[in-house]
């Protein structure tokens, strides 16, 4: 009896993925937002969020994750993150005379909204790094599909 070919991995992997994904996303967001007080910042947080999506790709297959965040949306998010970083730097150049000048109020130390523009940079870097890793992995997954079908065609 032949059923439909199942994409992704076994039922155990899918269940564990369901449980862990929410935690990964929340922890990644925490690392990004508190980047100026605790260790972390834009890059590790972005990597964690991208890893959450990569886990969905491994567990469920490429089509499921493309319906959540498509390749085009990832590419556009990537560009918007990078543009945000540069435009913020230009605003600093305009206001303060040096690139990346910290022009927002600094607040009191050890609070969430302190240290000026660092929190906005962390968010922009999270968007850029997360989307970059995600679309690189998606591109490699598409390439792998091309190579496997070529090998199958050769064997037939």
């Amino acid at each position, binding site marked *: 009896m032949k059923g439909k070919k199942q994409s992704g991995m076994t039922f155990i992997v899918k269940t564990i993925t369901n449980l862990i994904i929410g935690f990964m996303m929340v922890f990644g967001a925490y690392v990004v937002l508190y980047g100026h007080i605790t260790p972390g910042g834009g890059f590790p947080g972005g990597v964690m969020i991208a890893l959450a999506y990569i886990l969905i790709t491994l567990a469920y297959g490429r089509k499921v994750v493309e319906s959540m965040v498509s390749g085009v949306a990832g590419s556009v998010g990537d560009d918007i993150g990078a543009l945000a970083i540069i435009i913020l730097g230009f605003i600093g150049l305009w206001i303060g005379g040096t690139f990346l000048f910290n022009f927002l109020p600094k607040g009191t130390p*050890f609070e969430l909204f302190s240290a000026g523009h660092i929190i906005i940079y962390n968010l922009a870097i999270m968007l850029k*790094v997360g989307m970059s890793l995600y679309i690189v992995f998606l591109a490699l997954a598409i*390439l*792998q599909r091309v190579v496997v079908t070529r090998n199958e065609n050769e064997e037939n």
Partner: protein
Amino acid sequence: MTLYFLNFVLLIIGLYALVFKRHIVKKILGVAIMEYAVNLFLILLGFRKSGVPPILMKDMDMATFIRTAVDPLPQALVLTSIVIGLGTLALMVAMAIRLYERYGTFDMDEIKRLRG
């Protein structure tokens, strides 16, 4: 001192894998191991025996903090270096997949012969 020596051994292992192995993926892993070794070397430079992480908390005395914390500057350098290594590695993997598509083999010696 032994830490630096072991780090150097890691660099040599990566260099060995890069030079003497013929499979493309093993060469890429050799480059990755060498990058880990150099990043580890940078972090080891700031290490201090019985030191605290360089995170300033609300009720810490500045003088003891400066005396006992490890150096945070190499850690910032390493963060950038890891990102650069990620970019290079992604490019290498993509190129290895394209090479396999084109030549049908992962063996570096045969790819050299094909070029002629």
